[in-house]
């Protein structure tokens, strides 16, 4: 096998650089950090602040094989001399972190963390989201220590790794089907994601728990006094979709179980709903969301961030409900009040917004449903 180091034709035809996360961390980044020589100079050093994502492909090309992802080393640069935040702005935009960092294990040993970032064109907070995604991997300096006390270590930024070398993988997000009505409906959970969710929900990722925490954060932000009067009809329309999805899948009976919401006050919890501890704090958020929706219903609509978040939650729930037959283990919170409440809020909200167009079918469906049970008769039509 002929390899010419640093040459363009260093990789034989047909071979692609597709390292596992463990290889990236344990082989490449470890060697980089300890200044060891790496056999083939496949991962280059890049100044992230001077490189736009669309220039990465040229800069980080490996051999002649077509690539779907690109790799580079980057040295983290502090945003402020005294702070811990990292500066990831370029001339054309900036990289913004999303979600929570993921712990990377080598067999059972924790070796590092992965941060997911999205590239936004423009300047915060007016950036326009792009399809460029970056996974930024960093090593745990004290991985041995951390693996012993791994409680709550998965949350957020690690304390010790705000500065230093990271290895990054950049790729373009695939858009499976973006057009689900409105052209800018970029927040639809794709069907692929749904199936993945179903497959992964049993794994150790504890996806629901993570999302709940993330939602909790968003809600807290809301309760700190940010209030929005700006009405976004597009936002309102989107609320209906998860419900549509669920109905389309013949899961009406799931909604028959919705608790009645007769007044905007916090309803007493039916005894039949078991209270999962993992959901306790979320219950209060859910209640406040309902309250808010009820209070502002006089305007005909309300588009506040909390409801927006619940809409996403709705979609998630819908995607979880879509395949109960594939998921033998029932979701831990499926019958919990926090879920059912926000579903109700979604109804209420959508009804006030006067869903037009294709929503008619949905509402005739809900009328049928409510006439049978009279449980969601609060829906304002």
């Amino acid at each position, binding site marked *: 096998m002929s390899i010419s180091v640093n040459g363009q034709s260093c990789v*034989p*035809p047909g*071979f692609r650089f597709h390292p596992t996360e463990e290889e990236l961390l344990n*082989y490449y980044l470890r060697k980089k950090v300890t200044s060891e020589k790496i056999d083939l100079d496949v991962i280059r050093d890049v100044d992230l602040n001077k490189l736009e994502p669309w220039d990465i492909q040229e800069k980080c090309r490996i051999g002649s094989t*077509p690539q779907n992802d690109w790799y580079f080393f980057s040295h983290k640069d502090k945003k402020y001399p005294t702070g811990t935040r990292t500066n990831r702005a370029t001339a054309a935009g900036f990289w913004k972190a999303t*979600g929570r960092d993921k712990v990377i294990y080598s067999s059972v040993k924790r070796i590092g963390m992965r941060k997911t970032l999205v590239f936004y064109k423009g300047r915060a907070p007016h950036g326009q989201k792009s399809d460029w995604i970056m996974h930024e991997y960093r090593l745990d300096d004290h991985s041995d220590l951390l693996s012993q006390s791994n409680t709550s270590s998965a949350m957020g930024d690690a304390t010790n790794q705000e500065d230093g070398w990271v290895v990054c993988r950049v790729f373009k997000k695939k858009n499976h089907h973006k057009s689900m009505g409105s052209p800018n409906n970029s927040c639809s959970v794709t069907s692929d994601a749904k199936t993945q969710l179903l497959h*992964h929900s049993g794994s150790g990722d504890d996806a629901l728990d993570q999302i709940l925490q*993330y939602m909790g954060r968003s809600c807290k932000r809301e309760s700190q006094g*940010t209030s929005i009067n700006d009405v976004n009809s597009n936002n309102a329309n989107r609320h209906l979709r998860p419900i549509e999805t669920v109905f389309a899948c013949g899961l009406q009976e799931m909604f028959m179980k919705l608790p009645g919401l007769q007044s905007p006050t916090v309803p007493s919890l039916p005894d039949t709903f078991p209270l999962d501890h993992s959901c306790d704090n979320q219950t209060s958020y859910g209640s406040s969301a309902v309250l808010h929706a009820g209070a502002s219903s006089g305007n005909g609509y309300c588009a506040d961030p909390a409801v927006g978040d619940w809409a996403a939650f709705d979609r998630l729930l819908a995607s979880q409900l879509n395949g109960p037959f594939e998921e033998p283990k029932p979701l831990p919170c499926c019958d919990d009040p926090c879920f059912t409440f926000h579903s109700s809020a979604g109804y209420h909200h959508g009804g006030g917004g006067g869903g037009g167009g294709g929503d008619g079918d949905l509402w005739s469906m809900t009328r049928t449903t409510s006439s049978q049970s009279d449980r969601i008769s609060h829906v304002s039509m």
Partner: protein
Amino acid sequence: MGEGSSLPPGFQFFPSDEELVLHFLHRKAALIPCHPDIIPTIDIHHCDPWDLAGKALQGGNRHWYFFTHTTQSRATATGYWHAVGTDHETIASSCVDVGVKKTLRYYLGEAPEGVKTNWLMHEYHLLDDGVLHSTGDGGTRKKVSDSAQAMQEPRLVHSTTTITVQESNRWVVCRVYESTGGSQSSFHDDGGSELSCLDEVFLSLDDIDEISLPN
């Protein structure tokens, strides 16, 4: 990965259709030496798909690659390969058609009563009228020799090592894999390089943040 072991960690054999046809199959057919010569030659009649380990080149995603010789019959000891559909995908390079990709499925037993399996094969042919061929008139003669070979089983043992020049343009290169789930697995869907569903959800939530936050 065998011969790929001199590459640093992280490299896998993930050839594109075009690479398979232009680099590997064309060279094989034109008797141009491949360097590195990594794809082995196998007699498809003597290899059930689960026997490919150790004989064929293992690429990424547990795909197996080998050269073989097309014959009319693609029967093995315990089953046979049968074409999926009738449409064959054309492989183009710089807007010129250079090859054809056929998909076949492995069935246990004897045709046409075989039992369907999850084993699939992509069989890449050079286009007959392509300019790539160094030997022009092998086509019709080949058919005769194929059926002759199929009749006389014992001679097949030697056939892979005594390929003559006029048969060279009947080489095919194959990718065999066991499909998991309904759809054919793509080359890129193994770990890490795509967003997890969780990431997708978080991205969705970010969208809502953008809408919600003032200024």
